[in-house]
């Protein structure tokens, strides 16, 4: 691995076990991974491969059962809830599969809910125009299409200028055309900012637009590949 790359986030021997109802689930079984500054990384895996669990731990939403997670020189492994909150507040942006917009707030307000608590945010208006929604500022989620809602969610995530953008199946609830439009937005943002972006998906095609693809299987990293021909988002097809 190139020694000059700037590592933003790094995990070692990460495991996570949790109880779901009456069964124990071992979601992660020793994951070693490093995310580089400014790269677009795609984590591929089938349902149950542990990719959402990994994303939650990377984003400071959850804690590992064992192993270490470091953000730059901060050890997140033993961070308190308060420190994890501060980490998310300052450095991480999230995009979820089901957008998770707050239905009682307009597009602008959904972004404002994040900019309100950020140090040096973009204005909600400019974040929304970066995703092409400058004309839909005062629409409520129920008045927006699925793709538009997901773009609001992306605007909300990038408005704080995060160093890390984590996207959990961002196209999972969208049709093909809308999905491509959302990926284009992510691609453009990756090009124009030096935000590290991680997309988790079960859709192998999306890997073609990544700098690197991490394959997850059964809670382990099954291999890391670099696409031979990195393709533009609008060239993807599934």
């Amino acid at each position: 691995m190139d020694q000059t790359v700037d590592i933003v986030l790094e995990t070692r021997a990460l495991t996570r076990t949790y109880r779901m109802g009456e069964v124990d689930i071992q979601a992660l079984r020793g994951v070693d991974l490093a995310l580089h500054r400014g790269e677009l990384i795609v984590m591929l895996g089938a349902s149950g491969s542990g990719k959402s669990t990994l994303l939650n731990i990377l984003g400071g939403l959850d804690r590992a059962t064992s192993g270490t997670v470091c953000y730059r020189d901060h050890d997140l492994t033993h961070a308190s809830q308060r420190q994890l909150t501060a980490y998310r507040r300052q450095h991480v942006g999230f995009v979820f599969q089901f957008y998770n917009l707050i239905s009682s707030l307009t597009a602008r307000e959904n972004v404002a809910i994040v900019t309100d608590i950020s140090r040096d945010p973009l204005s909600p208006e400019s974040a929304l125009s970066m995703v092409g929604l400058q004309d839909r500022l005062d629409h409520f989620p129920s008045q927006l299409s699925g793709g538009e809602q997901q773009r609001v969610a992306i605007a909300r995530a990038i408005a704080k200028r995060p160093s890390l953008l984590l996207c959990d199946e961002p196209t999972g609830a969208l049709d093909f055309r809308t999905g491509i439009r959302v990926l284009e937005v992510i691609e453009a943002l990756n090009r124009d900012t030096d935000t590290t972006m991680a997309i988790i998906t079960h859709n192998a095609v999306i890997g073609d637009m990544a700098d690197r693809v991490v394959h997850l299987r059964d809670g382990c990293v099954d291999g890391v590949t670099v696409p031979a021909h990195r393709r533009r988002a609008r060239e993807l097809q599934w």
Partner: protein
Amino acid sequence: MRALHRKLLRDLGRLKGQALAIAVVVAGGVMTLILSVTMLGALTHAQQRFYASHHFAEVFVDVKRAPLGLVERLQNIPGVNLIEARVGAPVRLAVADFDDPVRGQMVSIPDGRQPTLNRLHLVAGHLPTVGREEQVVVSDAFAEAHGLTPGDSVEAIINGRRTPLTLSGIALSPEFLYQAGPTDLVPDYRRYAILWMNQQALADAYGMNGAFNQLSLTLQSGADRDSVIDALDLALSRYGGTGARTRHDQQSHRFLEEELKGQRAQARILPTIFLLVSAFLLNVVMTRIIRTQREQIAILKAFGYRDSELARHYAGLALLIVLLGWALGVGLGAWTARWMADLYAEYFRFPEMRFPIPHWALALSLLLAGLSALTGSWRAVWQAVSAPPAEAMRPPAPQRFHRTWLERSPLRHALGNSGRIVLRHLARQPAKMALSVTGIALSAGLLIMGAWQIEALDRMLDRQYRDIMRMDIELTFGDPAPTRAVGELRHLPGVLAVEPWRRVPATLINGHRRYRTGLLGLEAVPRLRQIVDEAGNPQPLPPEGLVLTRYLGQRLGVGVGDSVEVAIMEGHRRRLSLPVAALVEEPIGVGAYLRRDRLNHLMREGPAISGAWLLVDDNRRDDLIDELHDLPVVAGIGLMDEAENGVRRYLDETLLVFAIVFVILAGSIAFGVIYNNARITFAERARELATLLILGYTRAEVSRILLGEIALLGGLAIIPGWAIGIGFCTLLSEAFSNDLFRIPLAFSPRIFGLSAAGVVSASALVGLLMLRRLWRLDQVAVLKAPE
């Protein structure tokens, strides 16, 4: 405004039905608190001001007749501050165009000037002029009732002679704030008057020249009241003194104090119950609202919102709801207080009564309401906020279900699928179900309390005026008369039956407990004024011993078989010890009864009577009253149906109004609890219901699940609600027990029926609203949305 605040307001807007339901409960608590405290403050304040500015006396004595020269000697009793003697006498009046008998009280004032004690507050006109013996000042309520103004005249029957009187003025007095006739419970302003006349004129009319029969005085600060009273009693016993009384035994003061006591009890009990119920409701509702926002909370946490920020946010939601209820309660409280003020002005004649809402009451109610919001929502908020965000974002694990015991019982075939779903849902979270049932049961209990008040008041009056007081007319004689008067009365037109009675003022004493009342001597088997057992059956009087109202027995701490000391305040003043032969339930008034022949014997007198009760042929009543007017022996004529109407009107206007407000509040609470429950159930189950619809269930079939749960919760709450209601009523009945009346703690099936009907109809209404929601449910949209 920050986006989070905006979300708060929008959430509130979305929850408006539920929020309003809680706000109404809070408003009920705040309203009762504000109302009671305002009334209490206004009455107390008006009382204190009027007493102080018009020198209300502290000790009162009635004597038969004592020389005015004695006053100077009494002034020297250590501890006496101001002292004033006067002449007072009962009087009968005739007012133009008014046929019913009017009773009155004549009181003398120093010629041409205000008395030193119990000064008059003139509303119109002036005091009687010196030397004008026909001039009187009349009580304002009486003047108002008959539309009298200064210059008008009335006729008094003084010593059997019709004497015309002219009104020189109209006045209020601290001594007669509450102007009920001597044997009445509530004022009847058309039939009872106070007249103030120059001392000389009144003394001439009643042959009291150089003498007095009433004495009022104030005490020096730090004086020993009891020793002053003992000294007065000693000095006045040979002049026929009936014992010095403190304000506590002064009729007007006593009634006012009882009213204040009731208000105080009300100020404590009702708001407490309402605020507890509202804290409880907030708890139930906030817990469930917050659960539906589980995901939003997780998202906000993912963005980096701190636990404390989110806790404040959700606590803010609870506080906003409560604040809304508080404002509503303050508004309603102020409005009802103003309205009650007019009512009280009717019964308590103060020169001015102001009704400012005390600032501390605003602050206290706000504090209590806020506390109920926080205690109610704290746990829910904290649980939601402290869950790790990743956990909150995962769909909740499939909840554990079990077969319920009902499904193993033979009833299982009757259940059907929807029944099974309802049962398993409720059985899965027994704590949640218990909370919901408790909430509904509390409101059912409030309904019992309201219904009980309405019915118990009616029952109380029926007992008093149907079972106990069966006479039509009560005649009071000026002086004890021989029993042959009965024979004369029997021959008057329209008289169907006559029953004589003897009443002697007395103080009952047991150790340090004492109660001033009268011994009422009745026939061996009284028919017109019965002594009844608990079931309302008439009882003969025991040949020996006293029969006491149970309340009096409790006040004195004596039971059947104990002895009570009786200090007689008339004639030969004696102290004797009499056994208590029985206690009787009498809801109104406080009495001590014995056989009249025994009382005559104790008084060492012949068969004397103080008055008589008449049963009258209604058609000839007016003729009879005309005849009675001309009997010199009759000092007062009381019409029982008027007295009953007066009491009913008084209770209707005061307690009953409260009770009705109460039933309305309780009903809205029942609706609020059930509605909130159903709304949340609906939100929690929308996906499941939509799934069933897609699987091919009809909306009618699916609605059975929803309605089944509403019906089951309501049904389970009814009986605990009754128990809670009985508890509330016991509290209230104890708080409201006083000398005037005791609300009997009896419950008819109707009360329970009403409470159940309240729950059932609230459930039915909610069921309809939920059906509307179900019919509008877009099953596809529900299933598409994330869990």
